[in-house]
């Protein structure tokens, strides 16, 4: 007589086998004292595990532990409720079930707002042009002298008229212009500088 493997007996005792192997093993076990004993041992073991796992681990003060866990669970739930309530307060809800009238009204309102914004923007750009004022002030330096003008009026600081030539003419981006003149006979240097503020 061929005995079933110990794995199969373990599954048989726990009811995990499909019906056909279960039926064949049941037939064998019914006729085999050794396998009956094996199967009974597995059942006893399972019963012992079930019984003993119901016991609280030795040394655990269950009442106190349970009270502590209950309090922590309540605290956790309340914290979770508070967080979800805070989330709901600031959530943007999607528009649902909007009627066609509401949709038409909203579209018209958005259209009016767009027109108003466009007209206002055009007016503002005209105002900016009007506020821009006269042409900017120009400073310039040449052999003749250093001057500035705003398009309508101007002034010039003229350099020496005789025996002079401009040695260096400078223009800076911060709004200044300068010219340095050297007298060919005396070696005298004249520096003119104009700043615009």
């Amino acid at each position, binding site marked *: 007589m061929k005995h079933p493997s110990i794995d199969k007996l373990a599954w048989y005792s726990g009811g995990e086998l499909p019906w056909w192997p279960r039926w064949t093993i049941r037939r064998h076990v019914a006729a085999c004292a050794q396998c009956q004993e094996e199967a009974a041992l597995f059942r006893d073991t399972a019963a012992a595990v079930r019984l003993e*796992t119901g016991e609280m681990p030795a040394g655990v*003060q269950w009442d106190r532990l349970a009270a502590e866990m209950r309090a922590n669970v309540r605290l*956790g739930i309340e914290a979770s409720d508070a967080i979800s309530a805070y989330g709901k307060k600031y959530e943007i809800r999607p528009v649902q079930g909007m009627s066609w009238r509401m949709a038409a009204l909203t579209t018209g309102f958005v259209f009016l707002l767009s027109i108003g914004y466009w007209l206002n923007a055009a007016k503002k750009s005209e105002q900016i042009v009007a506020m821009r004022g006269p042409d900017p002030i120009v400073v310039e330096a040449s052999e003749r002298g250093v001057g500035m003008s705003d398009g309508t009026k101007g002034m010039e600081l003229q350099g020496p008229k005789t025996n002079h030539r401009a040695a260096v003419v400078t223009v800076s981006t911060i709004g200044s212009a300068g010219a340095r003149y050297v007298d060919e006979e005396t070696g005298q240097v004249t520096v003119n500088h104009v700043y615009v503020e």
Partner: protein
Amino acid sequence: MLTVHMSDPARQTTGNPGQEAADLQNRFIQEHMRRVFLIIYRIVGNVADAQDLTQEAFIKVLQRSEQLKDPDKAAHWLSRIASNTAIDFLRRHGRVNFTEIDSLADPLVTEHERNPEQTLLRRERAERLDEGLRHLTVKERTALILRDVEDVPAEEVARQMNCSMATVRSHIANARIKFRRYLERRKA
């Protein structure tokens, strides 16, 4: 004909929906906490982790309080959450750290444990179980607890443990064989 309606005082409604929900939650915690703690403890093997994970499992379940309307389904769901929480914990930490019984401070002496003989017997049984479980791998222990203690069908155990049915059957068989041999050795 006179009809008398009897009502369960524990289930009487207060008329305040918030209070009723809180009462329902408290009853649910009261009824299942011990069972859930023990499932998790037997899987992770130590009291401190089991305490944290039990709390975590209850918070997960009670955040969806609409699930409590059907007590049987809720209990089943809670067991599943509890074992999954414990399995996830072991996956994350990859360890089992059995609490040394002597290291637990201030052991409880409850009313029914005042009898020293009974206390000793209980302690011996708990020690025997802890030691037996220590001979199993994490997967074998988890499969054994879910199948033989929680009576979860093998297919469901496979789903929870995220492995095939054949693997779970192998874990279950190995666990039973090892535990049986352990008990036989102890008897001998």
